[in-house]
């Protein structure tokens, strides 16, 4: 019951939704429409699960004064303040807006912007023309870097032209190969999930 019924559910749902694309059979098609709309509602609850999980990880840490418990306190405080003001005072109130515009927006963007430093530093320290393949990678990267920005066309009118050719021919060829092979992997993995041959998504031992 703990493992068998979920596997049966997965088989029925997966097969039903897949066959709905190929078979015109009113009960199947109607059921598929319903199941597709159910997925949206179930996904909504999974967001709440993620938030609950965050609380269950950080609150014990705060209670036991373990590790970086001060940072956990800051995280939980701001999370609860945002939830309380957002739900009970609306998303247009000044506190929620301040958190959104003053903390979330700059915080999120700046954390991502750190990658610019790291990619530059990594490229400078490790990008070496050690072999034919790495030289080709290096030259292509430099060419595309120049052709992607305005200075490339200012240096030479041929840089954007060659860059476009590299993007449309060898790059597209390789990416096409990657798409084809990854689609086969996708089909394999998901068929195995639906047919119950792979049960990793069940988790646990019981």
């Amino acid at each position, binding site marked *: 019951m703990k493992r068998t019924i979920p596997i049966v559910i997965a088989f029925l749902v997966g097969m039903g939704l897949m066959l709905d694309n190929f078979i015109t059979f009113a009960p199947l098609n109607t059921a598929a429409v319903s199941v597709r709309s159910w997925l*949206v509602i179930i996904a909504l609850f999974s967001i709440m699960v993620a938030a609950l999980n965050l609380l269950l990880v950080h609150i014990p840490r705060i209670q036991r004064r373990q590790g970086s418990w001060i940072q956990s306190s800051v995280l939980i405080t701001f999370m609860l303040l945002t939830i309380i003001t957002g739900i009970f005072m609306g998303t247009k109130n000044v506190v929620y807006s301040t958190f959104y515009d003053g903390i979330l927006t700059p915080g*999120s*963007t700046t954390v991502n912007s750190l990658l610019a430093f790291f990619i*530059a530093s990594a490229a400078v320290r490790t990008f070496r023309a050690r072999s034919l393949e790495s030289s080709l990678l290096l030259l292509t990267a430099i060419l595309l870097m120049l052709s*992607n*920005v305005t200075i490339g066309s200012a240096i030479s009118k041929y840089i954007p032209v060659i860059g476009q050719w590299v993007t449309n021919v060898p790059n597209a060829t390789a990416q096409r190969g990657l798409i084809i092979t990854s689609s086969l992997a996708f089909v394999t993995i998901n068929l195995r999930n639906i047919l119950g041959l792979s049960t990793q998504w069940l988790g646990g031992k019981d």
Partner: protein
Amino acid sequence: MKNRLFDPDKRITYLLLLLVMIFPLINPLGIAIKPSENTLLAYNYVENLQPGSTMILFIDYGMGQSAELTPQVIASLKHFADKGLKLFAATQVPEMATALSTYLAQTYGAANKEYGVDYVDLGYFAGAESAIGAMGDSLIDVFKADANGTDLTTLPIFKNVTKLPDINVMFAVTASGTIPFIRQANAKFGMPIIFSVNAVMGPANVPYVQSGQAVSVLVGSTGAAEYETLISQPGTASAAMDAQSLAHLVIILLIVWGNIGYFLEQKRGKEKNA
């Protein structure tokens, strides 16, 4: 022994990068922006749409990528408003729901378009690809109400639109993947899709344009700057291009410098062993 000249402290690299980015932001160089093939494809496609055509916008990127993708959203929305396209806008990232409302206010709102008639903010939807699949059956069942809680059946914009295939074209701005949109909209209903993706994903999506599954793929802030040039409304992306250029040039020069050091080290090593 490490040669400090050819392998400097990483903080020097960081400082140099910051300086070459800050300088052109204060003193722009004014290097011309020339629209690329992909940007022209997208722009011309929208230009050829009739006023009153319907467009659905999906925002599928987090706040972290907003610096790269929001300029494209703003430029495109200005173009859509100008062309009189009826817009359905939604996001599958919770933190972008508020931002989406702001973008619509800055573009459709500022162009005096009527809410509920010319455009609608559908807000956040959960479920990603599953939800897009469900939209193929019924948009109203997936959303039920707009971002303000208004029943969708009361909005005039939904008069002739009940499900995804009723909409003429999709504009998907994504940092997580184009495949769900291609699978659920283009493969199923033949819906034309214009993609705007972050730079990382740009090269990987060229095959979809070549196969006709996507109208075009606009790439990162360069695509946004080119689009701003085409609609003659320069914005933040255009202002950033000079800084991009200098930053790229400096990184390339540092890579070349590092490689010169590498080859000299290799030569010294060979001479020692000889």
